[in-house]
């Protein structure tokens, strides 16, 4: 039975190293013989067993004895576990492609190995809130879509975060596709720990809002579009922000006065605190009628939840 695992392990190793090819060939031969109910000619299974038990004998003869006596049972268990994990990996991969998470339509928001290994598809806070979770509301933050729409999407985003930026095309697509059925609200969640001047971007957007909703969304778009030029939050962004403000036609006197007064810092901090209390630990985090999506995910992930919520609302 152990030949099956050996065939796969040596088979993979043989791709990278010629020295494993004879072993891989032997293991495949043994596996073929096993499935055709014949004895392994080269005794590869015995050799593997002997090698494992021999090594264990040096450390713990008792363990070696147990492994030796139950080697066939252990082999069967390992083969079953191997194929089970292979199947589960396949299932999770399918879910990841189809739904943007490893758990499928019933996403629990739990740990997903793809996110963890492929490295932070969201900007993560170092400390995670462990108090009582309070679902977020739209507050008085700028939004798009009817206020009484059956589905509300609240995004906690950081203007200096590349992942928040990457999520914007999907947001725009969603807004277009579900026009009139959803309300989208952007709330500030500047992660200063990662992006040094993130708050400056949020202040600029809020100062633009002062001059009208349209100006806010223009500034919102400009900051994300030109995030690199804005320093990605790590280089002081003042110069480019001023330039962007001029290009979207803001009253520069008012804009400068607003920026210098830092009068929206309180509002930004409020958004941040409410985000923390809602359990936000990184950006972007979306709440779709309270259901969470973390990071830039494929549009299918959003559509799935929105469609379900629309169905519940019988729209």
């Amino acid at each position, binding site marked *: 039975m152990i030949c099956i695992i050996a065939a796969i392990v040596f088979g993979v190793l043989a791709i990278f190293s010629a020295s494993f090819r004879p072993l891989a060939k032997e293991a495949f031969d043994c596996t073929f013989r096993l499935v055709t109910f014949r004895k392994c000619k080269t005794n590869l299974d015995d050799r593997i*067993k*002997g*090698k494992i038990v*021999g*090594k264990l*004998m040096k450390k713990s003869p008792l363990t070696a004895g147990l492994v030796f006596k139950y080697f066939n049972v252990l082999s069967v268990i390992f083969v079953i576990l191997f194929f089970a994990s292979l199947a589960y990996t396949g299932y999770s991969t399918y879910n990841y492609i189809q739904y943007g998470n490893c758990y499928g339509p019933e996403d629990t928001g739990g740990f997903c190995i793809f996110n963890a290994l492929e490295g932070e598809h969201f900007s993560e806070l170092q400390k995670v809130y462990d108090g009582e979770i309070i679902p977020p509301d739209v507050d008085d933050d700028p939004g798009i879509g009817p206020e009484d729409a059956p589905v509300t999407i609240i995004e906690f985003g950081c203007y200096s975060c590349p992942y928040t930026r990457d999520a914007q095309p999907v947001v725009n697509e969603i807004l277009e596709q579900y026009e009139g059925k959803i309300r989208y609200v952007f709330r500030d969640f500047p992660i200063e720990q990662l992006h040094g001047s993130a708050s400056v971007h949020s202040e600029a957007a809020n100062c633009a809002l002062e001059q009208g909703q349209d100006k806010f969304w223009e500034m919102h778009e400009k900051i994300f579009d030109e995030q690199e030029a804005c320093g990605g939050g790590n280089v002081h962004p003042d110069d480019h922000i001023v330039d962007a403000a001029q290009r979207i036609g803001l009253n520069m006197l008012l804009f400068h006065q607003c920026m210098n007064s830092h009068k929206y810092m309180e509002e930004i901090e409020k958004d941040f605190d409410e985000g923390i209390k809602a359990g936000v630990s990184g950006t972007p985090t979306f709440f779709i009628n309270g259901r969470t999506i973390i990071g830039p995910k494929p549009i299918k992930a959003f559509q799935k939840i929105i469609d379900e919520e629309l169905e519940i609302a019988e729209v």
Partner: protein
Amino acid sequence: MMGFNVEKIRNDFSVLQKNLKGKPIIYFDNACQSLRPNQVIDKILQYYKEFPSCGERSLHKLGKQVDKEIDESRKTIRKFFNAKSNKEIIFTKNTTEALNLVINGLGMKQGDTVISSDKEHNSNLLPLQFLSKRGINHKWFEFGNIDDFQEKLDKNTKLVSVVHVSNMDGTVNPVKEIIKIAHDNGSLVLLDGAQSAPHKEINVKKLDCDFFAASGHKMLGPSGTGVLVGKEKALEQLNPLIVGGSTVDETTYTTYNFEELPMKLEAGLQNYAGIMGLGEAARYLSKTGLKNIEKHEQKLNTLATEALKDKVEILGPVDAEKRSGIFSFNIKKMTPHDIAMILDQSANIMMRSGAHCDHSWFNAHGMNGSARASFYLYNTEEEVNKFIEEINKIKKHLT
């Protein structure tokens, strides 16, 4: 034992001075292949460093040096086997080639009979099986059973080809009686001496066998070396297995004239370095004393046998004296490979497992094979004690 100092002997084997993964090597796979002393290795290197040229054909100084060394080796091997003349020593690449040379070279015809024992190495069995495909009758008798042998012998028996010492369990065929009976019947006798030449004093004159085959790699010599010792008259009857350079002294486009022995049977450029190494190995063994070596091996085998005879299933007679230096065994609920692999991994004890090229015997007896420890001159009582300790551990924890 006069002059036998195992520690001194061990100093001649570089490989025994090394540790593998922090532990010394315990080499008990001598029936397969022995280790080589520095003297043999130096002799091989001498050829390549000092006179790496053609023998038997080149008249220059280096060529003459090769001829001298090869003659020396042949002389040493002749003395080692107590053969009559250098003509009776044919260098081969191993026992297998020597056996094939005789079995195929006698020009046996349909209706002739060849006899072997039921415990032959594939190297002896296969050539005989191939003969039977050509209509030659192949019979086999129970190893060691003279009555059975006599029963199988008939007037058509041209050759009796038997193993001297079994590589499987170390038991010894009563070859003197076999040879006597065969000769009385007018049959030639070929002995497979692969397991006897390295461990026992071989005197082909006393044995009176017609052919004796042995391997260099089992008797401290280089791999790729072997020897066929034969009576000159018997060797004269052989057709060469292969022909070519140095087997003839004259050719035309249509004719040839064979050289005299031994060259007639040694086609092509020879393994000069190997032959020199084999000569040196024979010198080393003779100097150490084959009787001393045999006694030493039996002492080690007795030590292992007495300690383990009730714990393992020994192949062959329990009496160690009847099994030369071979301790072949099985442990219930374990395969031979399990035993060998575990000993290798846990204690660097290296031994052979499986059918030892004696598949026919194991198949006839419904067995998968055995684990085989085979001792030699450089093995020590401490090593055997370690082996006993590890087998006891296996018995306690794994069965």
